[in-house]
């Protein structure tokens, strides 16, 4: 095989590799998007559960009755994420509908 044919062959192989890679990449993106979409509802439900848990344990920080103080205190050092969630909720509490719409991607 002469050099010319070799170059063409290499070119074709590289092209195929590139096509394969971009196909894989786009499949990965599609997979990721599909996975993301699949869990939107479940994630909203999870966040709601976490919010209830945080409110139940650390509710006294936002004026809700709560379990015996020592239980809240014992768990407090491990609940940074939950406290953030509570504070976020306070910020968005005036617009409950907008939160719902954004969860289900309406509008």
């Amino acid at each position, binding site marked *: 095989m002469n050099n010319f044919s070799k170059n063409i062959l290499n070119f074709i192989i590289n092209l195929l590799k590139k096509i394969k890679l971009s196909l894989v990449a786009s499949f990965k993106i599609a997979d990721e998007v599909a996975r993301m979409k699949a869990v939107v509802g479940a994630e909203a439900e999870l966040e709601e559960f976490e919010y209830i848990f945080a409110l139940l344990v650390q509710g006294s920080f936002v004026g809700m009755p709560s379990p015996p103080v*020592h239980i809240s205190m014992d768990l407090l050092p491990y609940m940074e994420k939950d*406290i953030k969630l509570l504070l976020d909720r306070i910020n968005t509490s005036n617009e409950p509908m907008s939160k719902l719409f954004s969860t289900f991607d309406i509008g």
Partner: protein
Amino acid sequence: MKYPETIFFIGKGGVGKSTTSALVSMMFSMQNKKVALASFDYAHNQADIFNTELNDKPYALSKFLKILQIDQDKEIKKYLKTTIRDVKKSYSYLTAFNLDGYFDVLKYSPGMEEYALVTTFLRLREEFKNYDYLIIDMPPTAVALRFFNLPTLSLKWIEQLERLRLEINKKNEIISKIKFAGKEIERDKVLTKIYEIKKTYLNLKNIFQNHMGDENKSSIYIVFNNDLLSINETRRIVEDLNTFNIYTQGLICNNKQAVEPDPAHLKSMPLYEQIKHLPFSKTPLIGERALKEFISINNISTKYLL
């Protein structure tokens, strides 16, 4: 190394819990048993009985008897300080809400008092591990009952929280499986802590309900006087403790008058057969000598009393 046998003395204010616990501690120490007597009562009566300054550092009255006075405020402050330290260590931001101000108010929260006592009790059990007896002079009825009820009440909350947290973790795992194709999620620190708290309260509940066997024996004695209010309150204490499945080991009638009580008076009491009598003392029972004299003159022993 085994834990000391715990004996709690409870009862209405002013019936003589402190004197009884001091006498029992003295009797055990005279039998060369190692005893730690801790007063959980705000009234600081042990300091008056032993005629000495007491605090939370054990005061050695003899080779066999150590006495402590627990300061609830100090215990609460110690606990809050540790929590604040842990929070500051694990929270990356603190400006969002005023933690320090909140903690200042917390020391007045309902429930803190009995929690401080429970924590102290667990600490003392460890501290006096090689002792024969840990004798606790409890505060008056209301706080004492809340103290004994604390593990049961806390467990009710903890079990609910555990259930909810497990649900959260299950959902979290499903989402991670779909989203990150099975990548393992971090272990939940909150759930780990919940399990830790649950273990502590189950252990405490077992101690109070005396389910731990001889290695970890605990018993509750109610001290009372021969008067209607004291008798009625004693009946209520026995009933209340029974509702948490905690059983009274015995009743001690501290006779504050020279006249022996009429048995007919006491017949209506629960555990009537187990009532033991502490004789009337003409002289005030103040100081080690007076206590020892009272024990030898009246020939009372722990075998009779407990």
